Structure formats: C-alpha cells, structure tokens
C-alpha cells in the first residue's frame, strides 16, 4: 500500500532537523523500520525528516579513546568495516546478523536504538558493550546517556520528543574485549526470540552479561556476571535459568528455555568447556 500523505524534508543542519521535529515531524534514519509502518499506514506522520544529510551523522571515527559511530551509519558499513579504523569484532558480528543485506544497506545503528524493538540486536549488544549515546535537542543542548537504561520498555526510550541520537560511542578498549553474542531466531534474519550477549574486559574489571529480546528492555544479569568474572568458569545451565527466573518472574517456559540457551551459548564463546 502507498503511505498516507506526508511531507519529506532533508535538512542539512542539526538545527533545521530539530526545528522540523519540534513541529511534529518524524525522524527517519534508514527507513527500514519506519518504512514498513508507513506502507501499512500504521504510522501517519505529517512530515518525515531525513537525517542522513546532517554532517557527522554517517561518520565513523576514533577520538579520546572512543570509537564514535554516527547515528546514521548503516549496519552494512559496520559489517564490512567500511571505515578508516578497526571496529571491534563484536560490532561486525552483530551487524552481519541483522535482517538481510538489502535491509542492512540502509538501516542505521541510531535508528535501531531509537526504535527500541525489544528483539532488535543493537540495543542488547550496545548495552553489553557499555556504549553511550549522544543526544541533541531542539535548543541545541547535548546530553550523553548510557545505552544501558536508555530503553524503558518495548518501543519506549528516554529520548525526549524532538530529540535525536547523533552518535553511539564505545570505549576503544572494547576492541580487545572477550565477547560472545548468540541469538535464536526462527528464520535467519528475523527478529530474535532470545539474545545472549557477554562482554568481558578483564584489565578494566568490566563484565556485562545481557539477556535480550525479553519483550522489554535488555536485562543485565549483574550478579551472574560478577560470578563469572570471579570464577572464570561457565555457570551451570541451572544457574542461568535461576538468574532469569528471579529477574523475569512469570516467563513462559519456552521463552525461558530459549533465553537460557542463548545465554549459555554466548558464554561458551568466551569460556571454553
């Protein structure tokens, strides 16, 4: 179906973009989530504000010990390491598992995080990597916020109306992190039924174990993570199941099993049997 009518703006400065958003426009990154909703007429914004022409939105650079991905960087560019710096291998692995190449060629990292589908990949992966978002509002004010905690629930985030994500930042150290990422889908390229993500950076004493596709925000299993760090051993499957059960009471047994499996397998990638 053809979308309901809308105006389409291509601002070339952040200020213009924010002005258009303040007037009720809907931001568009790659349109790979917004597009289907427009086509189905589930979304009927008065105007769509394309963000890709804004300077910096598609940059990938490294500064002050941080890898900075512009919000408009596509999944495919991350998959291909299509930039002047070396991206952490985990980013490339996660990117390759998102949707299909034709979708990855347009879908963006910022759009995915802003969209906050619980089953999407970046929100869980970036939580595990301790990434930060840089947000900008209509008054030109910038703020930083950790990806962990950014998502409030399905499709709900801390993004204020009229605010955009301009970049996603990861500590450069994360290049050397031990990592595991495992998602279970019914079909390759589908949204996940369960996601397990583990990042360990021993020299900065960082460990984060994340269960994704919970139906809400990614769940950080702090206690179990600390136990893994202290023992350097794989936890028993039952311990994973218990940790999930405590944090997500009332979980459907099939879902609990899938999530346990995804976590177990992501841990296996880091800690040998």
């Amino acid at each position, binding site marked *: 179906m053809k979308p309901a009518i809308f105006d389409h703006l291509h601002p070339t400065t952040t200020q213009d973009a924010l002005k258009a958003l303040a007037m009720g426009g809907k931001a568009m990154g790659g349109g790979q989530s917004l597009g289907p909703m427009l086509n189905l007429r589930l979304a009927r914004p008065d105007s769509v504000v394309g963000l890709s022409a804004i300077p910096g939105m598609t940059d990938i650079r490294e500064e002050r010990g941080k890898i900075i991905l512009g919000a408009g960087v596509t999944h495919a560019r991350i998959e291909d390491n299509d930039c002047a710096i070396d991206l952490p291998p985990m980013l490339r692995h996660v990117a390759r598992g998102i949707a299909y190449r034709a*979708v990855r060629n347009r879908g963006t990292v910022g759009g995915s995080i802003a969209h906050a589908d619980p089953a999407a990949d970046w929100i869980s992966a970036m939580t595990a990597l301790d990434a930060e978002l840089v947000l900008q509002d209509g008054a030109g004010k910038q703020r930083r916020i950790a990806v962990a905690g950014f998502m409030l629930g399905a499709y709900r985030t801390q993004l204020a109306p009229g605010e955009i994500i301009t970049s996603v930042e990861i500590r450069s150290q994360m290049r050397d992190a031990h990592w595991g990422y495992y998602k279970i889908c019914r079909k390759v390229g589908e949204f996940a039924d369960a996601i397990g993500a583990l990042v360990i950076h021993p020299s900065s004493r960082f460990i984060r174990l994340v269960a994704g596709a919970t139906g809400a925000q990614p769940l*950080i299993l702090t206690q179990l993570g600390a136990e893994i760090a202290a023992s350097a051993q794989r936890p028993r499957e039952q311990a994973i199941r218990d940790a999930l059960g405590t944090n997500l009471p009332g979980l459907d047994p099939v879902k609990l099993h899938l999530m346990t499996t995804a976590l177990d397998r992501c841990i296996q990638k880091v800690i040998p049997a």
Partner: protein
Amino acid sequence: MTAHRQITRNDADAIKPLPIRLTVNGEISDHLVPPRTQLAELLRDRLHLTATHLACEQGVCGACTVMVDGRPVRSCLTFAADCDGIEVETLEGWQGDELMDRLRAAFTRNHALQCGFCTPGMLATARDLVERLDTPDEARIRNELSGNLCRCTGYVGIVGAIREVIEERDALRIPPKSPPALPRIAAQGFAPFTARADEVASAAPAALGETTSENGWTIVRRKVTLDHPPKAVWTHFRDLPSVARCLPGADLSETDGKTFAGHVGVRFGPISARFEGAGEFTADDATQSGQVTGRGKDRGGQSNVEGQLAFTVHEGETPATSQVDVSFRFRIEGVLGQFNRPELVNGLVDYILGEFVANCNAVLSGGEIRESKGVSAWAVLRAVIMGFFRRKG
C-alpha cells in the same frame, strides 16, 4: 531545508513534489515525486519497469530488491525523494554485465525459477553475492538468501546457480569484493577477577503473572495491588465509566452501564491508531468480580481486535489494601496482529497496569487522574485492553 508546513489530510496538493534526477539501467531521467512515492512505484508506474515486483512491502520477501549504486536495497522501503543522484539497476538492465549474464544462464541451467515472481529480487541478491562472497559456501549463500522468499523452487537450483557463478568468477580471476574477514577468535578464557560494581541496576520487573498464547488468543494473567480497601476498590471497579477514565487514551462515547461504545487512541513507537468499538459489561457484587467483553476496529478497518477482561477484587495483605486478579484474553487480526508477540505483550501489560493502578489509586484517594505522559507511550496494548471494552452491539 524546506520550510515545514502544517499538513491537513485533504491538502495533498499543498505538499510540493520533489525534483530528482536518477539513472536507471543507464538512462538518466528527471522526475517530480510526491514524498510518499516509493522507489518501487516510480520504477513500475512511471518507468514501466515492471520486473521489480511488490509483495509484502515490509522488507521481508525481497521481491522488490534492486541495486542502488551497486548495492541491493528494498525498493519498497526506499522513498524516491531520497534517490536524487543515484544509479539504479533493475532486471531489465544489466545489459552487457558479465556476472549477470552468467547468472541468467546459470539460473536457466539449474531450473532456478518456476513462476518467476521472486526472480528479479533473487537475481539482484545473487548479483550482490557473486560479486561479494569470497567462497561458494552453501551455508553462507543460504543464509544470505533468507531475505528473498521463493515459493516454487525450494532454493536448490538458485543456490546451485549462485555457487556455479562464484566458481566461474574465480576461474576468470575476478576478485571478490568481500570485506576484511572477521577475526576468528577461539574461546580462550581469562584469569578470574573481581568485577567492578556495575552501576547499572538491573531493572527488576515487578510483574506477578504470566502471558501465554492459545490458538491465536493471547492470555495474560496478573495480580495487582491497590492501596485501598476492597470495598472502595470494588465500588470503583463496578462503575464502568470510572474504570474507563483510568485507562489513558480511552473514551466512552455512550454507555448505559451494561453496554457501551467508545474509542481509544493508540501510540506504539511510530504507530498511531484509533480503535472504535463497543462492548458489554457485567459485575457481580457477591463475588466482587466483573467482566468486560468487546470488539473493535481501527481507523480504515485494517485490524480487528476482540477480547475479554475479567477481574476479581480480594483483600490484600492488610485489610486496607486490595489485590485484584486480572485476566485478559484477546486476539488481534490484521496488520496490527504482527505486534501481538507474547513477550511484547508481557512488557507492555506491566507498563499499562502500572499506569492504570496509579490512576485508580489517585482516583480512590479523591485525586485526579495523572495526566498520562503515557499517552505517547501507551501501546497497542492500550488498544488491546480497550478491545475488551468493546464488542459488537
């Protein structure tokens, strides 16, 4: 940037078409495109390049896949207004393209098509694969083809054709465009350490209950606590308008206390919908339990929702509090149905119940309903719950 105009729905004419110039199959053309024009529509309806097929229009099936600046993209999810200056290649093009000629021959040899509906998208994807992949690895090819649905050939011929052309490419010494390989890291372990305190508190969802699905119906059970004695809560709950007022976005347009009609506005991420419907309400004072059944349709009638909400009010842990057992049963059909994933429903129900309980507590304390910031976040679930509040008259 173009100045922003406030658009009203019937002044489509007020929206200026945007000028674009693009090169399609080697030919340059200029167009004025209304903003809602998809690239697929431009190709098919204006340029009459009808090999590009449209099916799902959600990015799932791949039938509309074309090459834009040498990369496959979904032409159903690409707006023409974003295409100024690009080069597009469709099935009608690729004249004299060595890899495409070889692919066409290999598809024929391998009986890789039957009805041919998927073929234009398959060939665009295949062209990308034979150019990009470094080996004819079957598992990788099958993975990459998962975004192109074929209902006829079972993929055997298609995969075979692609493998053959990758081998032919290698024989011709055309180098693959594959990106640097991902370093293969074997699990290697690490020395134990004391994790630094994770500043991020794990959000512990307070939900007490479960969500299951059965024959297309989603069933949600929850127990919620209200800070008021059962009698007061029951008086509130047995009065339909007062309950409805606590559900943000809901509006009862008419009710006689037993039947009702109304609507609910829904926002769910970028989705906004408005459900209209009607239903019935019964309450039993003896057991302090009530039931609402309802049925509704969204604007444009693209989705139907029907459901049932049952609740019983008990004494809570102290006589001054109540526990309400709530159970929803609902079913969504139509385009919104895809958002009816049990785990999504789970998270949303908790959020919505939280808002609802806060509103009920406020009203019971003699206060006002909190102006719900939830209106923006109120989800399909709000619609769904309100689905219970309506049923055919």
